[in-house]
Every structure is written in C-alpha cells, then in structure tokens.
C-alpha cells in the first residue's frame, strides 16, 4: 500500500509542470492533426460500442476484461475530444497560416489518459490470457508499477522545450518501458505452450502488435528533439505519432484481446461446457 501511495504522490508532483508550447503551423500541418484527432475519436467511440456488444458472445469469465477494454477506449475517446477542442482553441487561421491564439494547447490530457488506461491495458492482457494464478498475481503488480513509473517520468520531458531535459527524462522513462515490453514478451512467449492452437496464433500476433504499437511512443517522443525542439514539424509529428499509437495500442489491442477471448471461450466450451458460461 505504501508503494502505491508513493507512486501516486510522484505522479501528482510531476503533474505540476507546464504544457506543450504552440508554434505557427501551415494549413496542411494543422489539418493533418485535426483530421487525425477526428479519426481517433471516431475509432475509440466505435470500438467502445463493439466491445460492449461483443462481450455477450464471450464466456462469463472473459466479460469483465472486455468491459475494461470498453472502458479504456471510452476514456480515450473523451480525452481525444478534449485534446481536439484544445487544438482548435490553440490556433487561428490568419493570412493562410495557423498562428497560436495565446490559448495553450493542453497536452496534459494525454498523460492524464495514460495514467488510467495504460496499466489497465496491461492488466487486461494478463487477465484474458488466464495464466496460472501465481504468474498472474506477480505479473500484474510488476507491470502496473512499471507503467506508472514510465508515464510519470516521461511527462517532465514531454512538456519541456529543452532537448536535454527531454532526452534525460526520456531515457529514464525508457527503462520501465523496456522492462514492460521484456516482461510481457517473455510471459506471452512462455504462455504459448499452454494455449489452445488457434489462440497461439493470436497470442503471437498480440506480441507483435505490442512491440509495433508501443514502439511508436518513444519515436513520437523523440520527434521534437529530432526537429529541433517544439517546432511545427515536431509538434505535428508528436501528435500524429501518439494518435496512431493510441489507435493501435487501444482499439487494435482490444480487438485482438477480444478474438483471444472468443477463441478461449470456444476452447473452454469444448473442454467443459458447464464452466464456459452461456
């Protein structure tokens, strides 16, 4: 309990930083982010409906995990609406270019979102795999702690316009990031032998999707450093990268979790119809 309270305090303290600076954007740059935010909102909203309705075709024991998946995309959908509104308020079209209005673009919603959704995504993956109890218990604790540390240490660098600060916090944040990927990859690999045949393929795909989608985040994080701070290209690259990563890591990951649960439901029914639920 003390560990949790300490992590919570660290997160709240890190939250006292400022937020992303704005810069002049071309019409194409502004429009790209605008459209991508719209697509992300639509994807998350549609995914929510799919997961809520889709859980009825799953065995009872997999439904709570699917409910949490629905919750994750609902939360993401709401935050993208807030980010989208903030983006619109932060820029105004004058003489063919989008200039900052003086209203800051509030990227803090992204990090607020991640503190709630990222640990849940990791836990639901473990939950739906139905690993042995002792493995699940240890795994959930380690992944959640690592996820909170990763997000909390990433934020100070994210909101800094100084490249050195960004790289230092980015490097610190990468340590729990790599740890999460390593633990999930190895545990998912270890679980392959215990899965039904069809589920094996899906779990392999889940591993690849995990690497692919999570790989987007550090790349997007580094873009402002590559483009010389929070320049127009840096800001746009960051928002495009994070939005794409969120679509894949939340909606895409959820769909794969759904199909794993669907296959396991079928396998459970074959083994024991009474335990598989309705």
């Amino acid at each position: 309990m003390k560990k949790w309270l300490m992590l919570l305090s660290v997160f709240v303290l890190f939250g006292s930083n400022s937020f992303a600076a704005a810069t002049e954007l071309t019409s194409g740059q502004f429009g790209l982010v605008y459209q991508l935010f719209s697509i992300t909102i639509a994807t998350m909203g549609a995914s929510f409906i799919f997961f809520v309705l889709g859980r009825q075709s799953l065995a009872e024991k997999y439904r709570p995990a699917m409910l949490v998946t629905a919750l994750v995309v609902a939360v993401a959908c709401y935050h993208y609406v807030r980010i989208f509104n903030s983006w619109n308020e932060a820029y105004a079209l004058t003489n063919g270019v989008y200039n900052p209005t003086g209203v800051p673009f509030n990227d803090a919603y992204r990090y607020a979102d991640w503190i709630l959704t990222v640990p849940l995504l990791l836990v639901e993956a473990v939950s739906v795999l139905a690993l042995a109890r002792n493995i699940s218990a240890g795994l959930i604790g380690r992944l959640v702690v690592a996820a909170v540390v990763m997000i909390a240490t990433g934020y100070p660098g994210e909101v800094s316009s100084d490249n050195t600060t960004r790289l230092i916090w980015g490097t610190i944040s990468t340590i729990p990031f790599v740890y999460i990927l390593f633990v999930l990859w190895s545990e998912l690999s270890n679980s392959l032998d215990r899965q039904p045949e069809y589920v094996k393929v899906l779990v392999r795909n889940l591993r690849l999707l995990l690497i692919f989608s999570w790989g987007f985040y550090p790349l997007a994080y580094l873009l402002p450093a590559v483009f010389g701070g929070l320049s127009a290209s840096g800001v746009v690259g960051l928002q495009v990268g994070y939005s794409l990563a969120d679509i894949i890591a939340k909606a895409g990951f959820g769909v794969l979790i759904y199909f794993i649960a669907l296959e396991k439901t079928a396998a459970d029914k074959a083994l024991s119809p009474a335990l598989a639920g309705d």
Partner: protein
Amino acid sequence: MIELTQVKQFVLKRQEAAGWVLMALVLGTLALDAFGGFGASPRLLTLRAVYALEMLLVVSYLYTLSTAQPKTSEIPSS
C-alpha cells in the same frame, strides 16, 4: 466492519455487476470533468489524482478476478 476477503467474495460473485459499477464510476468522473467539476486548471492535478485512484480500483478488480478464476483453457504443455 467489512473485511477485505468479504469484498473480494462479493466481487467474485458479482463479477460483471462490479465491472459496470467501476465503469459508471469512471464515466461519472469524465462527465464531472466535462462540466468543469475538477476546475479549469491546465495541470489537471485533481483529475490526475482521481484517475490514479480509479486506476488502482480497476486494477485491483482485474487482479481479484484473474487470480481467482479457474484456468479451464490451459492445456498441459507435455
């Protein structure tokens, strides 16, 4: 005084209902935020603290379920 094991048993008996309650709690937080209930601070401190607590609640919920359910779909490796 309600003990932790009693809460755990209650959640295990009503898994889906408990999930819906948690969903309502989180969606309620979002609604409160949408109507300015957490203030207009750009730092979102209160919202972050509430989210962190809710994340712990939902993680505890999934933890309880995944460490208690029967593993019928696990096939022996041999």
